C-alpha cells in the first residue's frame, strides 16, 4: 500500500511550534523531523557527557591523595572503563554528526529532510537502547566491566564483570552509527537542492560526508570483533583465547582497524564546524576550499591505514612498526593543510570576534598540541618510552576534548540562535571559556608532563614523586568542570529567557542562514536554488 503525504503550504510555523500527530514528549521521541531528532541527540548526549565528566572528576579526586581514599583499585578500574565507554561510544562518536549533522546537513544542502527519516529515528532509538544496556551492567551481579574501553582479549573473556552486555551495547551503538552514516551518504547524493553541486556544498557537509563513509566502512569491523567476544564468553567458541590456539594480538588488530579510524569519525566533523565558523567571522570566503574538502577525504583514507601504531610494543614485527609509523606521519599532512588554510582565511579578513570564533580558535590551538604530541608518539623510540603513560592520556584528551569537544561547543554556540531562535548571554560564555581554558591546560598539560616522567596510566594510585603533579591536575579538573557547568547553565537559561535572535545574527552565507530562526518544518518556504559557492560574502567584495 502506498502512502501519500499531503503537501499543504502552512503559514510559516517553525518546527518547534508544529503540532503533529503526537503531543508532549511523544512529539519528540516519535518525530521523524531531522531537526527534532538532532535535539533529541543533543539532550541525551549532553546528559551522558555530564555523567562521564563527573566520573572523571571522581577519578581525579582519587588521585588527589596517595593510597586508597575514595575508592578501591577495582572500583577505579570500573570507573575508567565506564568513563571511556560513555565518552567514546555515547558522546564523542555520535556527538557532532548526530546533533549538528542531523540538524544542519539537510538544511545546508537545501533539502527538506534526510533521505530516510524513519531510519534516522530508528538510529536514535538504537542509540538509547545501547545506552540503557550499557548502564544496566551497573545493576547486574558482575557489575560494570573493568577491562578499559578497549575490551582487550584475553582478559575481557575471563573477567567476571558484565563484559558481554557492555560489549553488546557497544555493538548496538555501532549499528546506530552505521545507519546514521548510511543515511547521510544517501542524503548527500540524492537530496541536494537545484544548483547545489558537490563543490558548492559547505565544508561541514564535506566533513560529514567523509565521516559517514568511515562510519560505514569501519564500524562493521568492530561489530564482528565485539560479537566474537560475546560468543567466546557465552558459547566458548575460542577465537582469541590462547589456550584454544587463538591469538589475542589479532583481537588488537581487528579492534584498532575500527577504533583508529573512529578517532577520525570523532575529529573530522569538528574540522567541518571550524571550516564553517572561520569564513563567517572573517567576512571572506574560505581559503583553499577544494583542498579542505579533499583533505577530509584523504584523512578518511589514510586514517584507515594506521591502526597498528597503537601496537608498537605488542610484539608485532619491526617492519610492521616502521610502515605504520611512516603512515601515521602521513596523516599529519592533510590535517596541517586544513590548519594552514584556516589561518590563511583569517589573514586580512575583517574579523568579528564572537564566542563561536573564540571556541573555534581554541579548538585549533588545543588540537595542534594534541597533533604534535601524536607525532611524537608515532616516532618508534619515543613511543616505547611513553607507551601506556599519562602522556598518551594527555595527548588523547588534547585531540578529542581539545579538538572535537571544543569544536562541538563552538558549533553549538554558532548555531544556537538558529536552533532555538534565542541568543545567549555572551559575557557568561567568555567567563565559561576562561575557566575551561585554564582548567583544561592545567589538567591535561600536567598529564603530558607526568607521562613524560613515567607516570603509568590506569593506576588508581601514584608514587610520591608524582604527587605534586597530581594535585595540580586535580585542581585543573575543578576549573574545567566549573567552566562546563557555567556554559551549560548559560545555554539552558538562554533557551527559556534568551533575547530573540535574528535569522542571521552572524552574517553567515550558507543556506541555513537564509531561512527563519527557528526554521519551518520543511526548512525553507520554497526550495532554494543555489547560485554561488558557499562562502560568498557580497558586502565584503567592496
Amino acid at each position: 500500500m502506498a502512502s501519500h503525504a499531503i503537501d499543504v503550504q502552512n503559514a510559516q510555523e517553525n518546527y518547534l511550534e508544529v503540532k503533529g500527530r503526537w503531543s508532549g514528549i511523544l512529539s519528540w521521541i516519535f518525530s521523524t523531523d531531522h531537526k527534532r531528532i538532532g535535539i533529541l541527540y543533543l539532550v541525551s548526549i549532553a546528559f551522558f557527557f555530564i555523567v562521564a565528566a563527573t566520573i572523571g572528576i571522581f577519578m581525579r579526586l582519587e588521585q588527589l591523595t596517595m593510597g586508597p581514599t575514595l575508592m578501591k583499585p577495582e572500583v577505579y578500574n570500573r570507573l575508567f572503563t565506564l568513563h571511556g565507554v560513555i565518552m567514546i561510544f555515547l558522546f564523542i562518536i555520535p556527538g557532532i554528526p548526530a546533533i549538528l549533522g542531523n540538524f544542519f546537513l539537510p538544511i545546508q544542502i537545501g533539502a527538506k529532510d534526510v533521505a530516510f527519516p524513519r531510519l534516522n529515528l530508528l538510529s536514535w532509538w538504537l542509540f538509547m537502547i545501547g545506552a540503557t544496556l550499557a548502564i544496566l551492567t551497573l545493576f547486574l551481579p558482575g557489575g560494570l566491566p573493568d577491562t578499559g574501553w578497549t575490551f582487550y582479549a584475553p582478559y575481557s573473556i575471563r573477567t567476571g564483570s558484565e563484559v558481554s552486555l557492555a560489549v553488546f551495547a557497544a555493538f548496538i551503538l555501532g549499528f546506530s552509527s552505521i545507519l546514521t552514516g548510511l543515511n547521510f551518504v544517501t542524503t548527500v547524493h540524492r537530496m541536494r537542492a537545484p544548483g547545489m553541486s558537490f563543490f558548492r556544498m559547505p565544508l561541514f557537509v564535506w566533513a560529514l560526508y567523509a565521516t559517514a563513509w568511515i562510519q560505514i566502512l569501519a564500524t562493521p569491523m568492530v561489530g564482528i570483533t565485539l560479537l566474537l567476544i560475546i560468543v567466546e564468553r557465552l558459547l566458548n567458541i575460542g577465537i582469541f583465547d590462547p589456550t584454544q590456539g587463538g591469538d589475542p594480538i589479532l583481537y588488537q588488530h581487528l579492534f584498532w582497524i575500527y577504533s583508529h579510524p573512529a578517532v577520525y569519525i570523532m575529529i573530522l566533523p569538528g574540522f567541518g564546524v571550524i571550516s564553517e565558523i572561520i569564513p563567517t567571522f572573517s567576512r571572506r570566503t574560505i581559503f583553499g576550499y577544494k583542498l579542505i574538502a579533499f583533505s577530509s577525504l584523504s584523512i578518511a583514507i589514510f586514517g584507515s591505514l594506521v591502526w597498528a601504531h597503537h601496537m608498537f610494543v605488542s610484539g608485532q614485527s619491526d617492519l610492521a612498526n616502521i610502515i605504520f609509523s611512516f603512515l601515521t606521519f602521513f596523516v599529519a599532512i592533510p590535517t596541517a593543510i586544513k590548519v594552514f588554510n584556516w589561518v590563511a582565511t583569517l589573514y586580512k579578513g575583517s574579523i568579528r570576534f564572537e564566542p563561536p570564533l573564540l571556541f573555534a580558535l581554541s579548538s585549533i590551538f588545543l588540537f595542534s598540541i594534541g597533533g604534535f604530541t601524536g607525532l611524537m608518539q608515532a616516532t618508534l623510540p619515543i613511543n616505547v618510552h611513553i607507551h601506556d603513560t599519562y602522556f598518551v592520556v594527555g595527548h588523547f584528551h588534547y585531540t578529542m576534548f581539545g579538538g572535537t569537544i571544543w569544536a562541538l561547543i563552538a558549533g553549538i554556540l554558532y548555531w544556537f540562535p538558529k536552533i532555538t531562535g534565542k541568543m545567549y548571554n555572551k559575557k557568561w560564555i567568555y567567563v565559561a571559556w576562561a575557566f575551561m581554558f585554564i582548567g583544561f591546560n592545567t589538567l591535561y598539560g600536567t598529564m603530558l608532563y607526568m607521562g613524560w616522567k613515567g607516570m603509568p596510566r590506569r593506576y588508581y594510585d601514584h608514587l610520591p614523586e608524582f604527587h605534586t603533579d597530581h594535585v595540580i591536575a586535580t585542581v585543573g579538573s575543578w576549573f574545567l568542570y566549573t567552566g562546563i557547568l557555567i556554559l551549560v547553565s548559560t545555554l539552558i537559561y538562554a533557551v527559556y529567557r534568551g533575547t530573540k535572535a535574528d535569522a542571521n545574527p552572524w552574517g553567515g552565507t550558507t543556506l541555513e542562514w537564509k531561512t527563519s530562526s527557528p526554521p519551518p518544518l520543511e526548512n525553507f518556504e520554497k526550495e532554494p536554488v543555489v547560485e554561488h559557492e558557499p562562502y560568498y560574502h557580497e558586502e565584503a567584495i567592496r
Partner: protein
Amino acid sequence: MKNIREIALEEHHDFVGAKMGMWLFLLTELILFTGLFILYAMYRVRHAAEFHAAATELDVVIGTINTLVLLTSSLTVAVGIEALKRRNRKLAKWMVLLTVLFALTFLVNKYFEWSAKIHHGIFPGADELLSRSQGEIIYFNLYYAMTGLHGLHVLVGMGILLWVYFLIARKPSEKVVVAPPNIEYLKGAQLIASKGEQERWVIDEIKDDVVEVEVVIKKDPKKAGVDIPNIIKLENAGLYWHLVDIIWIFLFPLFYLIT
C-alpha cells in the same frame, strides 16, 4: 456551491536512493564477514596442515547440496523480482515463497550437519575437541562462528522475504492520509473523487471535530497490477538474499573443499 479544496498529492519515493541505501548496508555486511575471513586467513597460514586434516571431517555431500539449494534460491528470487516488474503478482508470490522454502531447506540441512558434529563431541568447549591440536580447535571454532553467523543471516533473510511476500499478497491500493496540522486546511470542505469531468463520490462536509481523514483507493489487481513501492522492496530483499548466497559461496570451499 460546494466548498472545494484542492490538495496536491506528493509521492515521496526515491527508488535510486532506496537502492543506494541497501547497497551501502550490504557493504557493511560484507565488511562484518571480512573480519572473520581475515581471522580465517591468519589462522590457516599458521596451521595449514591441521586445517586440511580437520576439513576431511566435514560432509562434502551435504555441503554441496546446500550450495545448490542456495544458488537455486538466488535464481528464484531473481525471477520473482522480474515477474513483479512485469506486473505478474501471482508468479512473484510463488517465486518468493519458493525462495523461503529453499532457505528453510538449507537451515534443516545445517541442523542435521551440526547435530552430527555435536554428537561426535566436536563443538566449542567440548573435551573431545579440546584434546586435539590447536589448529583443529581453531578450525572448528571458526567453522561454528562463521557458518553460525551465516545461518543467522539466512534466518533474517527468510524473515525479510516473508515480510515482502505478505506485502505483495495484499490487494494493491493507495492510502492518502490527512492528519494534523494539514487537516485544518480541509475543515469545512468536502472531499470529492473525480475522474475527468465525472464525479464518482462526494462525502459530507468535514466537521471541526475531525482529527484525521484517510482515503484508501483500491486498485483492480487484474488491471492495475502491483503497488510500485513493493517492487523496490522485493528488489532490496533480493539483493540481501544474494549477499547471503555469495557469502556461502566463499564459506563452502574454505571449509569443505580444502582437504
